[in-house]
């Protein structure tokens, strides 16, 4: 269970508070107007930005002081999810072991992960030699290998076309389902939330609201969300 305990985030004039819990295995969309602080909230959970006050806990353990790489989560950003100068095998190996060593067992696991996301035989290619959709798959394959209990998605599929995006969301749902992963996904598109996430955290007016039922929220949006959805 992820607990945001009286979290207060400040950055210049910007303020955001959050105080809620997310159940293990839940799939939660994070939506709200641009600039409301959706990505900042994920940055705090993943350890890239330090909150002003409050704690982040996973299963009751305070991870506020933990380095990003040590936290019980994997994160996929909008871009730069792979090192462009390393081939996919090495990029994925970093998910197994940050020293990048590849022994026979690791190679077998990497090949299996690539196969799982439909990239079998792509291990020796570099990110620049595959398509954007394939790059997203490789990022997911690395998250699969890391097998952390949480997966944070900071709009990693924003640049993909609608069909590819739907495909990636389905893949996320499958993998998360298999591993029991808790998913937090920032999105601009309410449709993404409807498809992948039964629950939604609304971020608006300086507050990240506790998760609520996605279908109900979208059917009857509060004014701030209504303005944003248009």
């Amino acid at each position: 269970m992820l607990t945001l305990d009286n979290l207060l985030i400040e950055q210049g004039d910007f303020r955001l508070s959050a105080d809620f819990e997310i159940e293990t295995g839940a799939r939660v969309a994070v939506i709200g107007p641009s600039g409301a602080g959706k990505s900042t909230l994920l940055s705090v959970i993943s350890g890239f930005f330090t909150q002003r006050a409050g704690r982040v806990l996973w299963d009751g353990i305070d991870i506020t002081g933990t380095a990003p790489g040590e936290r019980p989560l994997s994160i996929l950003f909008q871009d730069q999810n792979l090192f462009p100068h390393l081939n996919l095998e090495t990029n994925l190996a970093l998910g197994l072991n940050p020293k990048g060593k590849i022994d026979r067992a690791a190679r077998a696991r990497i090949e299996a992960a690539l196969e799982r996301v439909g990239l079998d035989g792509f291990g020796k290619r570099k990110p620049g030699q595959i398509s954007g959709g394939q790059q997203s798959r490789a990022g997911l394959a690395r998250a699969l290998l890391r097998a952390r209990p949480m997966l944070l998605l900071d709009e990693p599929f924003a640049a993909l076309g609608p069909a590819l995006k739907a495909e990636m969301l389905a893949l996320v749902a499958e993998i998360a389902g298999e591993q029991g992963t808790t998913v937090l996904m920032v999105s601009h598109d309410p449709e993404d939330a409807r498809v992948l996430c039964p629950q939604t955290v609304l971020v608006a007016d300086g507050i990240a609201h506790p998760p609520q039922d996605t279908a109900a929220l979208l059917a009857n949006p509060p004014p701030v969300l209504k303005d944003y959805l248009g």
Partner: protein
Amino acid sequence: MATRLREITPAALASAALAALVLGALAAVAIRAGGLTGLRATDLAAIRFTLWQAALSALLSCLLAIPVARALHRRRFPGRGLLISLLGAPFILPVIVAVFGLIAVFGRRGLVNAALAPFGVEPISIYGAHGVIIAHVFFNLPLATRMILHGWEAIPTERFRLAASLRFGPAEVTRHLERPMLRAVLPGASLAIFLVCLTSFAVALTLGGGPRATTVELAIYQAFRFDFDMGRAASLALVQVAISVTALLIAARVTTPASFGAGHDRTSLPIPQLSVGAGRATLDALAILLAAAFLLAPIGAVFARGLPALPELPAMIWPATLTSLGIALASTLVTLIIALPLALAATRHRWAEIAAMLPMTASALVMGTGAFLIARPFVNPTSLALPMVLLTNAALSIPFATRILMPEIRTLQADYDRLAASLGLRGLARLRLLTLPRLARPLGFSAGLAAAFSMGDLGVITLFSDGQTRTLPLALFQLMGSYRMDQAAGAATLLLTLTFALFWALDRAGHHADPR
């Protein structure tokens, strides 16, 4: 917290090593000098000459560079790209080779005098104050041209298009576009040249000397070698430090904000209404031809005279060559080992950048004098000649290498710090998998510069050498001193070729290692 400490440890160690070298030398000099009382009238003349020649060299280089840069900006001709690349060559050209080439062109029996003699013109001499300035202009005219050309090309084409749509004539273009650009670029360019010329040693050693053409650096050398007056050498070194530090402080205040707003069109096309007119075309052609001749003739003269002389090189050249190659490679290694951690830390910690710039406060001869003073009570300093050359060469390359690496490191950190942190990639694994591959090009370029600089350096070795321990530049200097000019030409050709080859090979290696 522990991680943070671990991250800055390499930079802290590099800073400590560099500070020990530079500040140790400065302290030794300051203690030995015990004030400035040891200075004589000739030393005051050296101070005056140092400032005067540096100012005049900067002024002439910039003034002459303006028409050349303008011509290069508005003309397109075959070989233009090559010529602009060649403008970078003097940066790695060994000073002693350039001096040899300048003597071949402007010396008593040089090309210029040979051309003038039939008209009954008295032979001109390359030696003395004007020779020092000619050599400095030779080295810095290309630098100034590149900086000013860069300024011209930074004016967006849109501005010129706007000027054309407003029916600006050449005078209006000059007033509204070109003069503001020059006002922004020239102070920085002339100050950079002024700084370089303040620590001029090898040029003054070979072309200057005497009461009217001695720089402070040369005066240190003379007090050291001829008078063995260490107190005076130390006082002069202190003066040199004061001059360098003052100039650095001024340079830190002069910024070059050549702001012309954003333009979309990066490729600067020739500007039609500025290129017409036979008069202007002739002037441009003349500027380019003269500048190219001034830069290429000395190098051509070295090769023309040196290539046939290569088989007759004296035996002493070969050990000197090996020594120089060894020092150049070792000094390059030291440069990178110190500069890389400093540059990696400098994007976040100001102290690391300041540490990397420390060597700019001390010139080669100042560091040599300080090291000599430290070493003398313990060992025979001449036995330290080669290690001292290696260390001072590395120290003087570190500021350049750091400046080259820093922008690339900023990009690297902006692009991949998050990803690396999210995967826990750090320490040696980060160095091997991320830092070194992504920085291969600037590392190769820095290594090339450091190696070329060390290969061609004629500085500290003149203080420490017992006459038997030689680098290749020193061997060339000795051959020139004993008027064995054909052998000197051969040695100059060898030195020039090896220096450029080192630069080229290391720069290429960087490109080759770049996995992109």
